[in-house]
């Protein structure tokens, strides 16, 4: 054991010889493999495009250092430690999943290195932290807006919930939706649970059908949402389906086909809502390089990058606290997903986009400001 410990410190502990003092090092820790690799993939793509668009800050070239978290908490913690110590990064982007971000950001917090997560939406992630930020809104907000939308725009009096019990995101959204919906006078007539990876929802849907809801709120990830929609339509359920940003991906349409037509999504982003030149440029470059439309996660990845770089520039230094203060005082930043101003708890204040699936694509419906 002792021998190993010694061997180990000789290999892993050594700081890399290349002393790139002239590049600005940003660490990125994302799940590139493992169960949620898809999100890491999309966000990394977005970050890279954003970097291509803004490759410099403080007169130095930005260098992105990617570490794979393998969708695992232990690895996430190791990754952040590695980035801070070995790679001496000045800021961190990541992770994609709230749970893994919660494993990583206590470490960056202690080290005084600011971190921006593209998509960690759980309110627990930034709780009590000064150096942790995110580019997305949080679950309570999303759930509430969804409920308001359902009541006012969709005129729904009753709703049925289908919640993925294995995802904190889904459970959170469902719960906040239910609270707001009931507060606004609606009634939840049926609640069913699924698990990530489930493929058969016929039983849950049959029960739901019996309750005859006006709308179905199913804040799940795209695979489950697509399959759910398909099976619901096959059973003849006509109620509109409302889902969350986790479903916002091309894969939803490719898997769901006709069944997801008319599905509403609360989300961060839509290319039509993207008015600013920067957003348009981002979309153009992304489509050109990757031959597909950027989805919400790619956009958020890009936004996380823009947030950090903008803060570095305004801070005028690589000092962690200065960057952190700059991040907290971000106002009206021109981002891909809209205009971002940083609010409480490292969470941006921004409008929520409502999208709809129409004619095999995502169509922009409206933006709801907080």
């Amino acid at each position, binding site marked *: 054991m002792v021998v190993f410990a010694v061997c180990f410190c000789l290999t892993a502990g050594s700081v890399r010889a290349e002393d790139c003092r002239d590049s600005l090092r940003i660490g990125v820790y994302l799940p590139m493999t493992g169960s949620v690799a898809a999100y890491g993939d999309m966000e990394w793509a977005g970050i890279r495009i954003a970097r291509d668009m803004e490759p410099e800050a403080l007169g130095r070239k930005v260098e992105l250092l990617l570490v794979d978290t393998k969708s695992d908490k232990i690895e996430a913690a190791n990754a952040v430690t590695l980035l801070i110590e070995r790679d001496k990064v000045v800021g961190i982007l990541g992770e994609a999943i709230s749970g893994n971000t919660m494993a990583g950001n206590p470490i960056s917090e202690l080290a005084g290195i600011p971190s921006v997560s593209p998509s960690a939406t759980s309110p627990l992630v930034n709780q009590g932290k000064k150096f942790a930020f995110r580019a997305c809104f949080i679950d309570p907000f999303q759930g509430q807006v969804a409920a308001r939308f359902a009541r006012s725009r969709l005129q729904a009096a009753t709703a049925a919930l289908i919640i993925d019990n294995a995802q904190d995101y889904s459970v959170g959204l469902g719960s906040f939706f239910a609270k707001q919906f009931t507060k606004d006078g609606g009634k939840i007539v049926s609640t069913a649970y699924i698990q990530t990876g489930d493929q058969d929802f016929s039983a849950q849907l049959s029960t739901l059908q019996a309750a005859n809801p006006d709308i179905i709120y199913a804040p799940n990830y795209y695979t489950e949402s697509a399959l759910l929609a398909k099976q619901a339509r096959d059973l003849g359920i006509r109620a509109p389906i409302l889902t969350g940003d986790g479903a916002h991906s091309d*894969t939803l349409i490719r*898997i769901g086909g006709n069944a997801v037509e008319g599905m509403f999504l609360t989300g961060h982003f839509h290319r039509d809502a993207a008015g600013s030149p920067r957003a348009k440029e981002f979309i153009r470059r992304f489509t050109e390089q990757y031959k597909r439309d950027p989805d919400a996660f790619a956009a958020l990845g890009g936004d996380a990058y823009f947030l950090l770089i903008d803060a570095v520039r305004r801070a005028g230094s690589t000092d962690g606290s200065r960057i952190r203060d700059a991040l907290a005082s971000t106002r009206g930043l021109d981002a891909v997903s809209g205009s971002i101003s940083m609010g409480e708890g490292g969470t941006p204040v921004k409008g929520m986009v409502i999208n709809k699936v129409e004619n095999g694509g995502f169509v922009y419906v409206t933006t709801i400001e907080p």
Partner: protein
Amino acid sequence: MINGISLGSLYALVAIGYTMVYGILRLINFAHGDLLMFAAYSALYGTTLFALPWYWSFPLALLGTGLLGILVERSAYRPLRGAPRISLLISAIGVSFLLENLALVVIGGVPKPFPRPEVFDRVVEFMGIRIPVLTLYTPIITLVLLSGLLAVVFRTRVGKAMRAASTDFETTQLMGINLDRIISVTFLLGSVLAAAGGIMWSMKYPQVNPFMGVLPGLKAFIAAVLGGIGNIFGAVLGGFVLGVGEIFIVALVPQLSQYRDALSFLALILMLLFRPTGILGEPVEEKV
């Protein structure tokens, strides 16, 4: 109910493969579920990348998976024939993970949609209930494949050899039967059936990802045990029991739907406690 039968036949298809291999080799092939995944991906790429019509790419996928099954047996299980059982099991787990991670590396983690050919996409009205035509086709196709299999097992010489090997491994060898070939045939048949199950699974739940085979594989194993492992009829019966049971429980008690998988495992545990040889199994004497 019909959903249950449909689901059940899928489980049955995969369970048969498990049970056949177990019957002869006394090995739980953990990688069986991943063969399902391989078949789905092969069919997917056949149809999209090579632009083959489905009636070409599906059978090709079946064949490919069968060959993969034989390859796995040759490389990962045969060398361990004389080894303690635990080594075989570990090897099976290793193969399973290898296949999954290779798929992850080569294909990527993003789930891909599975193209459902037109023929299977229609919905029929039947006594006021709408049923996708696929749900009806699945049990039918299963029965067809099953009868084909039974014909092989009970009517041909190869089948007879397989049955002999599953009853008594060593004696069969002594009788001059080429056991290696028999085993390869077993794997071939089992894998092809799993592949069929995989393709139909992907048509019903049209998305493929590298880990899609894990849960069906485990469920199929439970089905095989429920019905009596080593017994083909048992596997079929177990598959249906499990499929119908799952659907019913969730329909009757929606609160429990999140526990669906846990309940399947619970059923397994209970079965192993009280009737380890399954519904149709025969008690096995341990010879000292």
